[in-house]
């Protein structure tokens, strides 16, 4: 394949990755890493470098729209980001001391179960819970532009969400992937934050987390300009389109897309774990 053909095909694949990444709050890496390594025979280190670029491009590309429209909750994001970054430090410390294959299998199984859980829409009673004292103290409750007009929400179970975010950070330090999935699930399932707010706030957080490790990958020479260029431009286009779709989309369809993507991610984790590829 010539460089021109390679650039074109990778840009198209990246466009799809950016679209799915911005709709689900998972970032483009989930789709990109397996595709680049399996179909384009890209070395895993170049693929990881490209994936890092794709995560930041998804996050920043979609964020402009999400911030202006008032979807992502910066307070929730900043507060939880503390847990994620400390978790990532712990994960990097544990990386040489924990069998990552076993961890990948457990994480994969958890994702399969979560794919099933996250399909269920919330009941009316679950939506109108009274404010939680801790969440109120932390000024996390807010509102977002729902399809029928602005809708307010009360954040629940902050300690559970904070702990899960710590785990998400540790996982990303240990396995290098999948923290976006835990972030969305922690906000959606544990903290009962509306799905669109969960995915867009996760979209904000993954960019910050990825920027923190960008220095390591750049100085180790993982970020190749020839590969990162079509990835960045494609993902950016996809995420801009994704952010427009999310604003108008039904939560039900977004949940469906999300659960399919984390189902695939779960299977990928099980495969990597059982065949010792992680």
């Amino acid at each position, binding site marked *: 394949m010539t460089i021109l053909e390679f650039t074109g095909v990778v840009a198209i694949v990246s466009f799809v990755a950016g679209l799915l990444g911005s709709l689900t709050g998972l970032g483009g890496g989930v789709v990109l890493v397996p595709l680049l390594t399996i179909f384009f025979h890209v070395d895993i280190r170049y693929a990881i470098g490209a994936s890092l670029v794709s995560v930041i491009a998804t996050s920043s590309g979609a964020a402009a729209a999400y911030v202006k429209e008032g979807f*992502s909750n910066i307070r929730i994001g900043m507060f939880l980001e503390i847990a994620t970054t400390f978790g990532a430090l712990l994960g990097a410390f544990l990386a040489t001391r924990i069998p990552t294959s076993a961890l990948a299998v457990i994480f994969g199984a958890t994702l399969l179960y979560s794919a099933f859980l996250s399909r269920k829409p919330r009941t009316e009673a679950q939506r109108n819970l009274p404010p939680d004292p801790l969440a109120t103290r932390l000024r996390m409750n807010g509102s977002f532009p729902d399809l029928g007009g*602005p*809708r307010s929400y*009360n954040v629940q179970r902050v300690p559970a969400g904070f702990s899960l975010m710590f785990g998400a950070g540790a996982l990303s330090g240990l396995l290098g992937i999948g923290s976006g999935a835990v972030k969305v699930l922690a906000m959606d399932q544990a903290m009962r934050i509306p799905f669109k707010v969960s995915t867009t706030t996760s979209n904000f957080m993954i960019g910050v987390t990825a920027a923190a490790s960008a220095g390591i990958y750049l100085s180790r020479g993982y*970020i190749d*300009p020839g590969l990162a260029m079509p990835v960045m431009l494609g993902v950016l286009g996809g995420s801009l389109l994704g952010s427009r779709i999310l604003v108008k989309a039904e939560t039900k369809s977004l949940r469906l897309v999300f659960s399919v993507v984390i189902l695939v991610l779960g299977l990928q984790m099980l495969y990597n774990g059982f065949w010792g590829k992680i």
Partner: protein
Amino acid sequence: MPAAQAPLRQPHPFIPQPWRDRRIEVILGNLLRTGVLLSAAVVLSGACVYLHRHAHEPADYRVFRGEPSEFRTIPGVIQSVINGRGRGLIQLGLLILIATPIARVAFSVVGFAIERDRMYVAFTLIVLVILLYSLLGSGIRL
């Protein structure tokens, strides 16, 4: 549009919004958009130079060789841009892209300070410090 901001179901009438000041949201949104568009423009111009010169060479990423130092350090990238290299321009665009989330966190500190929200100024500063610590402690050569 203050009228549209009133929530339909309001369990608590005076709950603060994520950003009470709409201006901060608009400034932040514009800041992000500018950063992203600037980085895309730089990457795209680098891509034109790179593809113009190398379009018909074979693409091979099977073997990891690591990047030469001109694409691994900030002074190296700047030097290769001055030398008129397409890939140097692409790396410069990627550096601008990496800077956008950092700028976003830094601006949020200012935003919370304008709102006189001391608690969140502290939270955001913690995130900013960890972010800069892991960026600068990672061996990246400025």
